[in-house]
């Protein structure tokens, strides 16, 4: 029952784990983070720096060019648009939607979930039931409804996907806050006279941040895929503006003849989502190991 009084290893200066494992763990964070940085840089800065043609308004005479054609390193699509360019600009849209949904979800969902758990009682019941309604709604119906009423665009995509993002994050935030609430230091904070908003900001937020950030990373990947599905259904980014999703949708029509039209955007999607997932996993193991 007694807690060991041995000198804490951190203080003694000795490393807590073998150097090899530390390096592996660091790699697990550095590599995906670097890949994501690469993708972001390529999509947002690439077109400004490199000689890349416009993603739309291509010459139909240049349609279906294969890879490594002059001026079109990945070839062109049925409309003569440069595929690489469409991937980069499409990446912009996909990433903007992903970040948008994540930000909206984390701030609104995170805050409400934490508030709900902290205050408990009637407030908790009310907030969670509201979110339950959102989750209970058939997803597709909701999205179609939103898309139809607002018309497909980046904003629509963000709004529609937030309907999932917010309750999902709220759930995670609430669960994390609930387990935190039972800790003695929360009672201690009350006795210290700390007001509820400072408790939320200084006590709760820093301690649930790891879970929320991990969830955000894993969610990014999911949102990009969902956006892809939206676009596949024609409800996301409207053509001719590219997104990875609608590129896959278009390319799917001629999959056997020109598979590369699907493969290139799928590859981009795969690398990005995988990197986010790996980063999320590595962060999760980093923070839960402590």
């Amino acid at each position, binding site marked *: *029952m007694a807690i*060991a*009084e*041995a*000198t804490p290893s951190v203080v003694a200066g000795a*490393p807590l784990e073998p*150097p090899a494992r530390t390096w592996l763990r660091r790699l697990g964070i550095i590599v995906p983070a670097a890949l994501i940085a690469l993708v972001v840089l390529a999509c947002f800065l690439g077109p400004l720096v490199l000689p890349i043609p416009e993603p739309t308004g291509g010459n139909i005479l240049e349609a279906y060019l294969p890879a490594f054609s002059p001026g079109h390193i990945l070839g062109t699509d049925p409309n003569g648009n440069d595929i690489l360019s469409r991937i980069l600009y499409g990446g912009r849209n996909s990433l903007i939607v992903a970040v948008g949904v994540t930000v909206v979800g984390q701030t609104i969902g995170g805050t409400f979930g934490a508030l709900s758990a902290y205050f408990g009682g009637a407030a908790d019941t009310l907030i969670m039931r509201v979110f339950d309604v959102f989750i209970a709604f058939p997803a597709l119906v909701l999205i179609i409804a939103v898309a139809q009423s607002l018309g497909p665009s980046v904003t629509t995509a963000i709004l529609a996907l937030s309907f999932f993002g917010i309750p999902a994050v709220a759930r995670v935030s609430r669960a994390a806050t609930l387990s935190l609430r039972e800790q003695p230091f929360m009672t201690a904070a009350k006795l210290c006279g700390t007001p509820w908003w400072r408790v939320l900001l200084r006590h709760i937020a820093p301690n649930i941040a790891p879970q929320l950030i991990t969830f955000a990373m894993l969610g990014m990947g999911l949102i990009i895929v969902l956006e892809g599905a939206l676009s596949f259904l024609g409800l996301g980014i409207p053509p001719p503006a590219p997104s990875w999703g609608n590129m896959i949708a278009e390319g799917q029509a001629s999959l056997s003849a020109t598979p590369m039209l699907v493969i290139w955007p799928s590859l981009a999607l795969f690398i990005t989502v995988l990197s986010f997932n790996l980063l999320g996993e590595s962060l999760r193991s980093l923070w839960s190991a402590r």
Partner: protein
Amino acid sequence: MTPAAALQSGLLLEVRDLRVTFTRGGRRVHAVNGLSYDLDEGELLAIIGESGSGKTVGARTLMGLLPPSARVSGSARFDGTELVGMPEPQIRHWRGSEIAMVFQDPTRSLNPTMRIGRQITEAIRQHSELDRDAAKERAIELLKLVHLPAAERRFYEYPHQMSGGMRQRVVIAIALAGEPRLLIADEATSALDVTTQAQIMALLLELQERLGMAIILISHDLGLAASYAQNVVVMYAGRAVEYATARQLFAGVRMPYTRALLGAIPQLERPSHGQLPVITGQPPDPAALPEGCPFRPRCDLATDKCAESPPFLEHEPGHWWACWNAAAVPAVVGDDVDDDGVRS
């Protein structure tokens, strides 16, 4: 090596200079660094130490319950058979049938989704050829042996339907299923209330007498050792530092560490608001043990000689300790402490 007041029944366990290291987080932890004692059949031995003293690892070595990175040296002979280096299949046979172990938290030792009767019959059938009905009969017999009230009914209950004391009785019943000759109780009463502890200890004593079973009581509570043990081993930083009969030990404490331990326990007989005698500092990190006597930084008798590790010797008949200087200081009986925590 047996302390003077050994029981006449014969030697059951002989531990000599046991050393156990294992790897944790890339470092070599010297959990046990020289443990020696004897145990007779039917004897109750108390191994006392604080956390990190190596008392639990020492016991787990006897059961072969060590992490794969563990390296064991020294000797532990149970009824003549060497346990150190015994291959896993053989140890598995020994575990439960010759030596059994009971742990601190009865709630975590029991499967919460399985009825307790089934947990006992499972253990019984592992160590015998009994069929299902015979095993059930034996299980109820065991539950009665550990004085679990309404044994026939409780056979079908789940752990959460019982109190902590009752759960610990069930755990003991499971341990007895293989009819072991030695029962190791590792802080078995530390998680229990003091009244429940008294009940469980009374049960263990009864089992000791009825079944002729030896018991090793591992604890941080010297009071427990005083009330129940025939012999006591005190461990610090992985090694045995004092070993004697309970009577000898408490009549005349030798080791500065044991003295500090005794002094630090609040006693009912002392007046309130006194200062407890304290020694500063903390036990050494078992992954970074210093040279020489591990207690040296905290010891009031420390001299230069202590840079050399003192051997564990029988300085008086039946009373062993590991200290260069303890013999020179008269043995302490009780405590003579004034209000400022200064020992006179």
